[in-house]
């Protein structure tokens, strides 16, 4: 049976396999878990295609990196600092994680598979999404408004 590569394995379990596939110049497809990259990546339905990062990451690239606690994370580069480290943030977040080094980067996304269709990161519609969604003041406003609406809804439920 052909199945998604990490449908039942954790990324740490697949770590050596990911390295081997990427080092061979290949692509590694995985189904990310979590909601931190919404609206771009929806858990359970969207997949991403990883390749090896051949050069220094650019702003808005989406790397798979390993945190110092061993956790694997797929978030977007928002800032590149003068010391060469990256400021990274999920598309569904607005707090930037600083100090990510090249040595922590395992691979970088070259495409998203959404509803069975491959959308390369060079795709114009993808680039428009990035331009709009990565304008942080707008995202901050939208996410804060959404959070506020959830809180109001929860309070109303308690009252009614």
């Amino acid at each position, binding site marked *: 049976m052909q*199945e*998604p590569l990490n449908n039942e394995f954790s990324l740490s379990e697949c770590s050596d396999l990911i390295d081997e596939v990427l080092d061979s110049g290949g692509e590694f497809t995985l189904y990310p878990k979590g909601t931190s990259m919404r609206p771009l990546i929806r858990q359970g339905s969207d997949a991403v295609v990883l390749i090896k990062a051949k050069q220094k990451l650019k702003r808005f690239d989406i790397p798979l990196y390993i945190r110092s606690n061993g956790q694997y994370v797929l978030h977007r580069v928002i800032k590149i600092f003068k010391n060469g480290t990256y400021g990274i943030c999920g598309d569904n977040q607005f707090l930037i994680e600083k100090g990510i080094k090249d040595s922590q980067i395992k691979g970088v996304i070259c495409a998203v598979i959404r509803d069975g269709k491959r959308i390369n990161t060079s795709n114009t519609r993808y680039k428009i999404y990035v331009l709009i969604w990565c304008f942080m003041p707008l995202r901050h406003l939208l996410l804060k408004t959404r959070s506020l609406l959830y809180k109001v809804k929860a309070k109303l439920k308690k009252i009614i």
Partner: protein
Amino acid sequence: MKRKNDFIIRKVAEQYVIVAVGEESKRFNGMIKVNTSGAFIWDLLETETNIDSIVKSILVKYDINEKIARTDAEKFIGVLKDAGAIE
């Protein structure tokens, strides 16, 4: 038939999996989960072989009847063919 060099078998969390590497991974982006007898057949496919020869080797290694061995081997070979892992 013979397995293609750009497919590899590895153990991930006690489970054998076959995946494509290099350019082939751009075409086949999944994995084939394999049990120990599948891994045994995969080893046999390192050199040119055929289904009769594979069944013979299975019967030497495992205590099963020929009909089951042939059915299982053909099923597994079918999965590998669909994935493009053998030539």
